């Protein structure tokens, strides 16, 4: 199977979607010749033209709003928000419009819209270019939230998101763009709403998603050297969350750590912990622990950014407290 970078897997998904479905089109800032800030769309405007790879002015809220209108009337827009931080400008169109219209209009319309956006820190870009804001969107009824952790999932989940009849927030951990993995060449969809067991283990369960998954796997590796076998669950879709797989993984070991790159308070980990407690209380041998970023804006200096972001050491420390 061909090996692709995570970023290439996304580009391939976009290309196959454009090829496969004439109603798909892309919108975003600098996504044409320039190829987008992370080069994801490089080459696509040359192949599919400026109509279907539509560069926009810097107007995030209305760009998403236009996509909502286009999605309601027969197209499938895929919007790139250059950095997830900028999505806050479009919060109104996403939450008050895209996510609600299907329900409040009693099923008469659908809003098949994908918003792709790179998230996360690790590059010293500072507080306005480094956030993981997915937890803000977790509480929005009508919106799906997807975060891939491998190149193969990046492609399959993106294709499934584009075909989904709902608005989907597709979060791309930018730290993973440079990760390589096997990616089937043909068109395929990886179903939304299903978690993936990334590693088997019977002693404790590490629940992660996106950029947290490689951290969890590294921690699992270290734990194994100490004789503890960690199961690693990759949530993949945060909403709808795969309760069945999540609860089975939690019950299997009774000891859980939830890992995320966003800040601790009000994070995705809170929701996971609450679900695990509600659904697997009898099996729990220890409190569900959360490993996340510190509750501060993301600083730019490398020393500070590292201190604020969650680490393998944090996971190991949390694991220690489970036994």
């Amino acid at each position, binding site marked *: 199977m061909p090996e692709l970078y995570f970023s290439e897997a996304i580009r391939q998904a976009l290309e196959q979607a454009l090829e496969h479905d004439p109603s798909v*089109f892309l919108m975003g800032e600098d996504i044409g010749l320039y190829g987008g800030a992370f080069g994801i769309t490089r080459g696509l405007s040359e192949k599919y033209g400026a*109509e279907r790879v539509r560069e*926009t*002015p810097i*107007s995030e*809220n*209305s*760009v*998403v*709003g*236009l*996509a*909502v*209108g*286009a*999605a*309601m*009337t*027969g*197209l499938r*827009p895929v919007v790139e928000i250059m950095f997830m931080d900028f999505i806050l400008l479009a919060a*109104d*169109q996403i939450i*008050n*419009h895209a*996510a*609600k*219209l*299907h*329900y*409040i*209009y*009693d*099923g*008469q*319309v*659908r*809003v098949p819209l994908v918003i792709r956006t790179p998230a996360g820190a690790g590059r010293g870009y500072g507080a306005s270019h480094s956030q993981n804001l997915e937890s803000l969107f977790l509480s929005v*009824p*009508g919106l*799906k939230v997807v975060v891939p952790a491998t190149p193969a999932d990046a492609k399959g989940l993106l294709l499934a998101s584009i*075909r*989904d*009849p*709902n608005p989907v927030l597709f979060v791309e951990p930018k730290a993973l763009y440079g990760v390589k993995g096997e990616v089937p060449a043909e068109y395929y969809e990886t179903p939304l709403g299903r978690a993936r067991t990334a590693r088997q283990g019977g002693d404790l369960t590490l629940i992660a998603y996106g950029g947290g998954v490689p951290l969890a796997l590294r921690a699992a590796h270290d734990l194994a050297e100490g004789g503890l076998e960690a199961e690693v669950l990759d949530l993949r879709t945060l909403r*709808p969350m795969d309760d069945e797989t999540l609860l089975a993984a939690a019950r299997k070991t009774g000891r859980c750590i939830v890992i995320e790159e966003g800040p601790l308070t009000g994070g995705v980990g809170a929701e996971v912990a609450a679900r695990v407690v509600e659904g697997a209380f009898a099996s729990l041998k220890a409190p569900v622990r959360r490993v996340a970023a510190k509750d501060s804006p993301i600083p730019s200096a490398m020393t500070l950014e590292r201190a604020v972001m969650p680490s393998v050491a944090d996971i190991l420390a949390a694991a220690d407290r489970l036994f």
Partner: protein
Amino acid sequence: MRPLLDAYRVMLLIRAVEERVAALYADGAIFGTCHLCIGQEAVAVGVAVSSHRGHGHLLAMGGDPARLLGELMGRVNGYCRGRGGSQHISVPALGFLGTNGITGGGIPIATGAALAAKMRNTGVAVVCFFGDGATNQGTFHESLNMAALWRLPVLYVCENNLYAMSEPVARTVAGGDILQRPRAYAMPSARVDGMDVEAVERAAGRLLEGVRAGHGPAFLEAMTYRFCGHSKSDRRVYRTREEEARWSARDPLATTRARLLAAGFEPEVGRIEHDVRSQVAHAEEVCRHASETPPGDEAAEAFAHA
């Protein structure tokens, strides 16, 4: 005069429905809030994406008064079975994309519908309604800019009723002239007496011609007035009774009726008035007999299923 008779029928229907809405609200038969467009009927005739003040637009697009009232009353016969309510009604089958509770929220959506129309080559032109207050939202500018850049088939119709809730245009629109805004994007624009339905139709028709011909978006400012308060709780402390009287004297219904009578259409006018009265009475009857919408699995239905 056929078009004017048709216009009169629609305007009268809007007025009659809004009056019943006001009464039903006062009686408690309508829950929530709603924004009446009484006084502004002349603007509504002929047009597809609306604002919070959208009952008239929907009726002008051929909306069924019973299904509109049913929506406000939370009945199963409502266009959205009461899920939406006054500010969130959509009737895609009529080309009515929807009312919108967020000031300025419908403007990019309308613009996106125009983008889709252009990309799909459907020949459709979109009409987008909003008030003077909405022209201060960032989405207004962002959307007009994109529409102009991409020559999208959309006619923006600003119903300038001199106030955004209680705030007069002079205190919210710098320079005071809304038409300077589309002009900043080099967009063709016009101002029209929004109390004169024929003038509105002519002006809109002229601009729509250009839009339909592929010349890109256009902008119409219709000067109008809302005869009632902003919403049901409004005591109208921000304007004078004299100003209201001046505008009442220009009631578009009265003007249209007078024109028709002067042209000898008394029998037709009588028939229309009778028809509308019974249509609205019937609509209300239908709603009173319709059951309240029973809850289902609302959380599951927040998502569309493939």
